């Protein structure tokens, strides 16, 4: 399935990274935090850097902000080479993890800080800070100190402090990490709304795949200092480029074996891998699999197994099905109107899915 996001080929490039590499010396050993990253971020795009901790996503963002200098490579902001430009001379602003609000200043002074440094006129500071506080819904709280505010409010102050400068791009380093789930979900929508409203390029660092999928136009999935896949959320989910991406984004089942004639035999079952031969690994999402008591007919992948666990999760049921070789497959079944389960623990069942839902890696 093709990616539906509007920005597949960046036209107006806000941020360009060209073979950017970052090395540290730690305990006398050279460590490569980022091992050559190349990417373009389009104007107005919501771009996410997604990966587990230590994958290099934060270092990459800090290099865009100017806090770290790349050991090699070029960084351009709107076509201008900024590789050696200090952070205070870059037209990007950052929302820090845990916000880094100035504790000795009021909300108003925090938000006005950047404009004051840019020698903006008093009237304009007043107008723009007022407007910005309205956008983030903090009007009337101007005189508060950061520590007198809740986490969500501090988050919005941090956002306002960066956005009020009208940067060409906004960098966000796990900005919702410190919030509880409910607030995080609300802030995700809020961030999306604000981004639409101000029309600024957002670069978003997160380890939370749901967050990245919900908000991003495009996602770069990183691992060990390299980009594993760079695509829209739909493509990343439906067509993971590597086993790592498949495992990191959402839940997925992995089957490996030797294919002959476009079919991978697994015990009594079969997995269709059209046109593949030899060692293959097959990824299939739990919600694409159908569960039935009888062996399915037709041109589908089909595997027999025994239900080892059924978990009721409200909107869907989750089954764990043990195959003959001991592998366990997860299956999600939409909780339909009759609210019954197809199988109980211990039942023998058949799993089936269409060939298009197998994502096959290998020869």
């Amino acid at each position, binding site marked *: 399935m093709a990616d539906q996001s509007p920005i597949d080929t960046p036209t107006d490039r806000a941020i360009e990274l060209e073979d950017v590499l970052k090395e540290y010396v730690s305990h006398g050993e050279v460590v490569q935090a980022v091992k050559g990253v190349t990417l373009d971020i389009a104007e107005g795009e919501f771009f996410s850097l997604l990966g587990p901790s230590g994958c290099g996503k934060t270092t990459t963002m800090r290099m865009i902000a100017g806090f770290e200098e790349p050991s090699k490579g070029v960084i351009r902001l709107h076509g201008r080479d900024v590789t050696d430009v200090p*952070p*205070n001379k870059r037209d990007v*602003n950052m929302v820090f993890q845990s916000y880094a609000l*100035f504790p*000795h200043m009021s909300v108003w002074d925090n938000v006005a800080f950047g404009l004051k440094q840019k020698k903006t006129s008093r009237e304009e500071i007043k107008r723009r800070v007022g407007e910005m506080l309205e956008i983030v819904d903090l009007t009337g709280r101007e005189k508060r100190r950061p520590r007198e505010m809740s986490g969500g409010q501090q988050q919005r102050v941090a956002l306002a402090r*960066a956005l009020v*400068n009208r940067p060409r791009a906004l960098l966000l380093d796990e900005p919702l990490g410190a919030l509880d789930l409910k607030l995080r979900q609300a802030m995700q929508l809020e961030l999306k709304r604000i981004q639409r409203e101000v029309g600024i390029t957002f670069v978003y660092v997160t380890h939370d795949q749901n967050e990245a999928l919900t908000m991003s136009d495009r996602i770069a999935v990183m691992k060990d200092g390299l980009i594993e896949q760079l695509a829209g959320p739909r493509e990343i989910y439906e067509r993971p480029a590597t086993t790592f991406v498949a495992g990191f984004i959402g839940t997925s089942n992995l089957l490996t074996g030797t294919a002959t004639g476009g079919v991978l035999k697994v015990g009594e079952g079969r997995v269709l891998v059209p046109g593949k031969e030899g060692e293959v690994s097959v990824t299939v999402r739990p919600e694409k699999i159908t569960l039935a008591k009888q062996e399915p007919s037709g041109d589908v992948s089909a595997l027999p197994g025994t239900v080892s666990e059924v978990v009721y999760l409200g909107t869907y049921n989750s089954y764990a099905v043990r195959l003959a070789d001991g592998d366990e497959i997860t299956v999600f079944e939409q909780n339909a109107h009759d609210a019954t389960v197809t199988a109980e623990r211990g039942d023998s069942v058949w799993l089936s899915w269409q060939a298009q839902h197998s994502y096959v890696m290998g020869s």
Partner: protein
Amino acid sequence: MRRLTPYLLALPSWMWLAIFLVVPLAAMASVSLQTGNVIDGFVMTFSFGNYGDALGTYSTQLVRSLGYGATATAAMLVIGYPVAYWIAFKGGSRKSVYLFLLLLPFFVSFVLRTISWGFLLADDGIVLGTLKSWGVLSADFHVLATSFAVIAGLTYNWLPFMILPIYVSLERVDPRLVEAAQDLYATRGTAFRKVVLPLSLPGVFAGVLMTFVPATADPVNAQVLGGTGNTMIGNIIQTEYLVNNDYPTASALSFTLMAVLLVGIFVYARVLGTENVLEAAAR
């Protein structure tokens, strides 16, 4: 019972303070209003004149002490702040080593340290003697027995008490705040002035208190390094008490010094009160 526990736990320290601070203070207040001499004994006469006499006689030394104390405190601030800053932000994993080095001189007695400064600064000592033999300084140049020697000694002796509280307040400044300021177009200098400095002011405040008070009252440095022309109020009190046995005058001077310092601190706190300082820095 549980509600009383914290008070019971605090009781020993309260009793300690009551016995060893309040009682001597009360005794001293009483002595400062008595008249008499050590042979015939002292009687309470409520002679507030003691204060006027003491102040009239020794106002020079009192003013000099405040001047030396203030100068030394300023010098400590100028020298100590960069040291604290360096340890807090550049000390890395060796922070505790540097702090230990800072405290190492305290393993030697205060008086001995001051006397060794006397050796260092002696007219024909290691420093001046060498410079004189090279012809850099004239033969009659001296440092000992000058106000410079006393202030230098005070600065040296109390410096760690300036550095430590400033270090503690700088240590708590999140380096990301500096990054945030730089991200918001501030230069390194502005980031320091608008963010780091205001956040370290509580430490500066504490450091000044912890050094100005003892430096002003200190008798050792003036005695060892100051010769005869640089007597401080601490020396006078000591002499009145231990040599002249004029307990009322010594007590009156002690109280006067305490009052002056307390008023000074109060004014200082009002003018530079931490909350106000922070407000001002935000503008």
